[in-house]
């Protein structure tokens, strides 16, 4: 694989289509600067700022961009809010579309064929494998991402967190809770 990647890079640099320094900068960005912390910031702001939450519901792309997180592929964002009665789960059945700007690059299981097929056919068994058992009367909505539209799950704010500030709340927001394969952590547990 290494030789083939180098061959492509040699061709693309030779044609002036790719700048090696830009390649290094992109790798550094995704290895160190983007990740689920960005999404946790968005969720914690939605929990603490009703005006922001309302904006996130109506125009997630703009609300998320206002915090400095913009997609590089020109994709639109949609925020889906968990409630007592509805739990949201995100998948990309086609390939691996994922909200990079707020969650970084997807975990291995998200890109795997079992997750891509089972999340749609039998989401409850997928959640069970993640250790997440939902009440039988909670409905599960599965959102299939595309190249143009990516989803961010806004998990429910854990109970007993009224006196926490946005920064402390963000620490409770896990990556999986923003994909829908988990819940936000309870306060006091780390």
């Amino acid at each position, binding site marked *: *694989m290494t030789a*083939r990647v*180098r*061959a492509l*890079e040699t061709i693309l640099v030779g044609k002036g289509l790719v700048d090696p320094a830009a390649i290094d900068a992109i790798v550094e960005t995704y*290895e160190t600067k983007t990740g689920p912390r960005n999404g946790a910031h968005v969720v914690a702001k939605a929990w603490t700022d009703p005006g922001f939450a309302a904006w996130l519901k109506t125009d997630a792309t703009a609300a998320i961009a206002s915090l400095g997180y913009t997609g*590089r592929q020109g994709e639109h964002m949609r925020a889906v809010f968990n409630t007592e009665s509805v739990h949201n789960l995100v998948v990309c059945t086609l390939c691996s579309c994922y909200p990079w700007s707020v969650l970084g690059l997807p*975990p291995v*299981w998200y890109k795997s064929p079992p997750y891509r097929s089972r999340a749609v056919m039998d989401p409850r068994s997928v959640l069970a494998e993640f250790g997440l058992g939902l009440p039988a009367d909670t409905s599960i909505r599965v959102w299939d991402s595309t*190249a143009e539209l990516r989803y961010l799950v806004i998990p429910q704010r854990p109970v007993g967190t009224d006196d926490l500030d946005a920064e402390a709340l963000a620490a409770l927001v896990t990556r999986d809770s923003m994909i829908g394969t988990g819940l936000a952590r309870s306060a006091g547990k780390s």
Partner: protein
Amino acid sequence: MSRLDLSPDARVFAEPWQAEAFAMVVALHERGLFSWSQWADALSTQVKAPGGENYYAAWLAALESLLVSLNVTATVEVDALAEAWQRAAHATPHGQPILLENDPARSA
């Protein structure tokens, strides 16, 4: 039905070539060489093909097929250069940077 592999990912990219293949796609899209939908279609095709469960191998194959369909390169050209890089790697003493110039067949 097959279970999920939930082992935590140690790093974003397991090997450097994966990072380079990933970044080339992002860079070429930003230059406007293709749309992100075109890319998603190409990747989806490779992910569904045999061997597609090896994600970054599928990613690389998708990039190559897209570049061939856009007439940026041809498979024979990639093959020849990849072989040259292989020869250069074998001819380079351990610990030194591998350069295409180190390919012994280069000037032949």
